[in-house]
């Protein structure tokens, strides 16, 4: 019993840091409507900056407090710079591009942090006062964690006072409801937004600094924290501070207790709680309907490609089919990867564009397909065609199950939920080493003898992927695709003319999942192995980049994007160690330059001429 109590308290202490991050995320979202992916990076920077600052200060409680506050201020300044330099320019961009741009910041911050602080984990040497403890039921509990537990409610109270008892807070709350009206009343939104972003960043920094004594400053903090923060914000209700606190406590305690009883399934446990919450309250515990609503602009019509483009497509296909006669084995393997990427991107586009369901975790289906094919072929000894067939089946089936939650959400909630689910698939692949081999992956999964010639395998991949992409295109112009687009543009009106919108979306989600799974299955046989990275966030972002680079509102866009991205990525990896920095900067630059994607911009230029 004491043990459970101690775990409970540990969970509460962790919840405070989580709350600080989520509070910043939620406040920033409320006013700017930007989901700041780089929020986890600000937390990570908070931990690193605190490590440096505290190293220069006296090792007593006063010095610690001073250092923590200084860290929060430094991060607030970083946040303000970030807002002025980047976010200010993309407030009008589609929300996924905003997510993507801030993900570019994540990549850059990772390399910057590694460059400044190195790749080693940095623990904070605990001064004697911090090693104090209290005895609870015969067990020691760190005194510092008790202070941490208090920090959550204290910050919640301070934020409440700031938002309800100051003019600035009143303006922030007004802007959360209707920022255009606030501007029409003479308030400079830019200053307000910069201020809010600085506040959010400062909170994230404070969280990172306060959590440092219980852990280390390391390069994986950013993504692990942002995933937790997304879950918390979704569970608590986007835009609600008390909701964020409640959810932080729930998730923090769940993680602390879960790690004792189901050490390998903590993430799954968290997901189950999130799913249960969303079923009962689709807008989170204390969220409100409409908090995510954003004035939706009607997306441009997706029209069949002009004849020239069709001929170009056919020509490209012929060139690709003839490629094995002209290029060497390395180029051929890159081409094989590019074809797989093409199907993967097309499947994401299918649900994002016409389906209107932006996913930040599309790698989940790719990974599921990959593991299904690999396990079928190694553990079950299934023949190649059967193993390959199992990939889309398994991915599509799980997507249909998971889709039940997804189709009830929209926009940012949907993106966050898909991200969280992908993280869980990744965690299962990583933690369940008995079946999946964990970090070592599953090796030696090769296609049968008839296909060991890389050229033959390439032709198979080309046929399956190009065929799959064309099939997806075909579905879009079939009655199903038209109904799907109607459901995206106005769910209410679509319902009114008798379209079952939830079913349509669910089916689209399952189809997209199956197609991504097929791509995953092919990739296993192409590489001969599968690792948890198949379901990683990086993979999801790859797909998003391809689609967004190409442009969501065109069908050819994702295909162009997939080819360009695979080529660029490959060149980049070989050219520099700091590829994250370059890639991140490239993403940010592309979003700033082409808010509608490469193919979108080309289409616009075409129409103008």
């Amino acid at each position, binding site marked *: 019993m004491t043990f459970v109590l101690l775990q409970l308290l540990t969970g509460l202490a962790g919840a405070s840091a989580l709350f600080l991050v989520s509070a910043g995320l939620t406040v920033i979202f409320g006013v700017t409507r930007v989901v700041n992916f780089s929020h986890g990076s600000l937390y990570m920077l908070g931990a690193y900056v605190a490590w440096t600052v505290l190293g220069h200060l006296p090792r007593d409680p006063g010095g610690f407090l001073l250092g923590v506050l200084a860290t929060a201020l430094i991060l607030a300044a970083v946040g303000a710079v970030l807002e002025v330099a980047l976010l200010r320019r993309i407030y009008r961009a589609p929300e996924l591009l905003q997510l993507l741009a801030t993900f570019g910041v994540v990549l850059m911050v990772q390399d910057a942090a590694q460059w400044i602080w190195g790749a080693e984990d940095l623990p904070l040497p605990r001064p004697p006062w911090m090693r104090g403890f209290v005895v609870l039921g015969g067990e020691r509990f760190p005194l510092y964690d008790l202070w941490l537990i208090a920090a959550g409610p204290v910050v919640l109270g301070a934020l409440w006072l700031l938002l309800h008892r100051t003019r600035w807070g009143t303006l922030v709350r007004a802007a959360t*409801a209707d920022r255009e009206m606030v*501007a029409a*009343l003479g308030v400079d939104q830019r200053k307000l937004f910069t201020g809010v972003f600085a506040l959010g960043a400062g909170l994230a920094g404070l969280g990172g600094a306060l959590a440092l004594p219980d852990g280390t400053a390391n390069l994986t903090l950013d993504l692990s924290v942002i995933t937790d923060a997304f879950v918390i914000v979704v569970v608590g209700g986007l835009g609600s501070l008390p909701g964020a606190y409640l959810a932080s406590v729930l998730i923090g305690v769940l993680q602390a207790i879960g790690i004792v009883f189901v050490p390998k399934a903590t993430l799954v446990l968290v997901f189950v709680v999130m799913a249960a919450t969303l079923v009962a309250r689709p807008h989170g515990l204390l969220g409100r309907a409409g908090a995510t609503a954003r004035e939706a602009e009607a997306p441009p019509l997706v029209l069949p490609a002009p004849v020239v483009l069709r001929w170009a497509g056919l020509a490209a296909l012929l060139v690709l089919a003839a490629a094995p006669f002209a290029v060497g084995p390395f180029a051929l393997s890159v081409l094989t990867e590019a074809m797989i990427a093409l199907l993967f991107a097309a499947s994401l586009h299918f649900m994002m564009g016409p389906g209107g369901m932006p996913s930040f975790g599309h790698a989940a289906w790719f990974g599921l397909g990959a593991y299904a094919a690999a396990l079928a072929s190694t553990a079950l000894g299934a023949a190649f065609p059967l193993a390959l067939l199992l990939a889309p089946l398994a991915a599509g089936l799980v997507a249909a199950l998971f889709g039940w939650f997804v189709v009830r959400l929209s926009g940012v909630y949907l993106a966050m939920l898909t991200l969280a689910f992908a993280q869980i698939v990744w965690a299962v692949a990583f933690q369940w080493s008995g079946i999946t081999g964990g970090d070592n992956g599953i090796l030696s999964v090769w296609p049968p003898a008839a296909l060991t010639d890389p050229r033959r395998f390439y032709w198979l991949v080309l046929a399956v992927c190009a065929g799959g992409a064309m099939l997806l295109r075909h579905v879009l112009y079939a009655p199903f695709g038209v109904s799907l687009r109607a459901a995206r543009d106005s769910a209410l009106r679509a319902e009114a003319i008798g379209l079952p919108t939830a079913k349509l979306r669910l089916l689209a989600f399952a189809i997209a999942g199956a197609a991504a799974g097929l791509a995953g299955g092919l990739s296993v046989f192409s590489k001969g192995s599968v690792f948890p990275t198949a379901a990683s966030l990086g993979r999801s972002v790859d797909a998003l980049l391809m689609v967004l680079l190409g442009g969501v509102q065109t069908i050819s866009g994702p295909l162009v994007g997939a080819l360009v991205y695979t080529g660029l990525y490959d060149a980049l990896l070989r050219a520099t160690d700091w590829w994250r920095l370059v890639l991140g900067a490239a993403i940010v630059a592309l979003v700033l330059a082409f808010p509608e994607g490469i193919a979108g911009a080309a289409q616009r230029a075409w129409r103008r001429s």
Partner: protein
Amino acid sequence: MLSVADLHAYYGRAHILQGVSFALGAGEVLVVLGRNGAGKSTTMKSLIGLVRPRGGEIVFGGQQVAGWEPHRIARAGLGYVPEERRIFADLSVMENLEVGRQPPREGLEPWTEARLFALFPNLGRMRARAGGRMSGGEQQMLAIARTLMGNPRAILLDEPSEGLSPLIVEQMAHAILALKQAGVAVLLAEQNFHFAARVADRAVVLESGRIVWEGTMEALLADEAARAAHLQV
């Protein structure tokens, strides 16, 4: 005070305002009349900067304000009360007023909460009520009061009588005349001709984004043919 010349505005590709010109004098009440979709609200939004005009001039207080950000136009002394009122639902009456607060303006008696509650007594009795829990008429009063907190020299009122009971409409008319008395120029967009006739000095009539009639309110009252052609449904 406010003069508009050859104003053009678009929603996406739709050409809504096709060369609108008129002038609002100091202390004057000018009504923009016209049927649904004539471009009244777009005119108002273009003037405050919420819709960016693609052509033409807007001179306010001697400055060319076309293309400015809304907050700069508002701070220059042009107030805007939108048709949908756009009250901050989670904020109390007092907090809604606080959002509108701007420094006093030279030559104008500053609007205080007390002065506004004298103009709209209903508001004074519900200071702590959340904006979302007020009736339509109360919200309309609050929307006007909120904009007045910015001490505007001229105010854009977009269909203040819409959907209100006759009793409240009467209060609105009274309030508009009080604003005129206080030296605030009023540009009113209306469909309710009788309400407009009660408060306006002059009128312009919009049809499909163009001004088709212009003159004093008396002249419009006398010109039955113009009313039949441009205003009757």
